[in-house]
């Protein structure tokens, strides 16, 4: 296998892969904040819907979530009489955002609840509103608790970006398949090894970034209480 010929081609596909990832990262974060807020405040009907959404994101395989987004979005859009503008890439972004948001919500909620009860009570007794309480007292401490879980969520997101080729998005995996077919499927094992290295490096970078913040965050924490979360696969 000619590595110098294959690697540039794969690297050219990297920007789209990273774009899908970053959209999912940012949209997922806001979705998670929204879902977590509803679940914490126990707004009647909406919080049950948020619970349902989180269990959908957590208990359905990501491939299936991607297919649901891919086939479901045109139907949903047709209901509002907008013409179908969805490419596989958009469906991949949306599917992964929904997945990441639901998963992240289940990182944020335990972190919020793990902050010492007294801190909540103190903020309440000082007359803080919900928003003030989140931004000034509970939030900074919860961030410290949530960081390891967030790192895991990030790594799962990177792993699951590898699945978007199944709905036809032209990411690194799909490009690798094209290259393999061009070489009459001779070097499949080697190609997948190369892909494994690429994804490991992406994970390593993400892990280093999260660890950098993990080292910094204790300055906001009232106690050294960081919830240990085992890195458990999520596909």
């Amino acid at each position: 296998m000619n590595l110098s010929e294959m690697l540039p081609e794969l690297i050219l596909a990297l920007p789209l892969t990273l774009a899908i990832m970053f959209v999912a990262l940012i949209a997922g974060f806001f979705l998670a904040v929204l879902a977590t807020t509803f679940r914490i405040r126990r707004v009647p009907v909406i919080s049950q819907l948020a619970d349902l959404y989180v269990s959908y994101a957590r208990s359905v395989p990501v491939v299936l979530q991607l297919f649901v987004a891919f086939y479901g979005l045109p139907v949903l859009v047709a209901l509002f009489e907008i013409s179908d503008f969805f490419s596989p890439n958009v469906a991949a972004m949306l599917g992964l955002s929904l997945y990441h948001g639901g998963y992240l919500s289940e990182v944020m909620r335990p972190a919020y609840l793990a902050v010492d009860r007294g801190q909540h009570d103190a903020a309440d007794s000082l007359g803080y509103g919900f928003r003030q309480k989140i931004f000034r007292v509970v939030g900074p401490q919860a961030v410290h608790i949530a960081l390891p879980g967030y790192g895991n969520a990030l790594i799962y997101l990177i792993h699951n970006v590898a699945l978007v080729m199944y709905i036809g998005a032209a990411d690194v995996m799909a490009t690798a398949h094209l290259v393999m077919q061009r070489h009459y499927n001779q070097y499949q094992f080697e190609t997948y090894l190369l892909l494994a290295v690429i994804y490991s490096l992406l994970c390593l970078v993400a892990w280093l970034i999260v660890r950098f913040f993990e080292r910094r965050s204790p300055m906001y924490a009232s106690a050294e209480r960081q919830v240990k979360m085992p890195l458990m696969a999520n596909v």
Partner: protein
Amino acid sequence: MFDFDVLLPDTLSILSAVPLTLALAATIFVLSTIIGSLFAFIEQRRVPVLRQGVVAYKVVFKGVPMVIVIFLAYYGVPPALQFLTTLFGLEYNAHSLPNWILLVIALTACVSAFQAEIVKGALNSFDRGQADAAYSLGYTGGQMFRRILFPQVILAAIPDLANSVMVIMKALSLGFAIEVIDIFAQAQLTAALNYYYLEAFVVAVVIYMVIAYLVTFSADRAEKALRLRM
């Protein structure tokens, strides 16, 4: 648009794949728990060279997405096995290995790394003082394990183990790439026959969510029952 009439036949068709999926998941769960416990044991006992090996194994299998591990097993295991069989002069065509065995090998390899982490965490939650107390009462190592350590460790590990059962169930959905028919793949096949894609996938979503609910529910019940007996 969404057609409600196909939901019932689709459901029946997709449900037919549930027993096989559960059987595969159970196999992978048992195998990976055994291997994971072995890894945790090696790390706990600080066995010199093996320990570094386990750490390296965990780093590798956590960094690589499962799809890629599955493909690596699909293209890598049969030739490797063929090499071994010819080395020992056995008459076996390794390329005739069924795909589901390759899927089991790949997923066991991945999940073992995570199971090791779970078992290690559960072992860390065990208070060493209790072991010392047991030994001072004249318990043998085996008795200590059976009567003191195991019941507490298994209780601490139940929620994580239930989670890993679900992870395995979901990971099996990647098997469709190498033609293993689980719930997701069956949904795809059903949809391909009648072109109602969204309907079949929605049915599969519901089935997965029901299974997840049942798994967490029974794990909760098991945890409560065991806690009462202690």
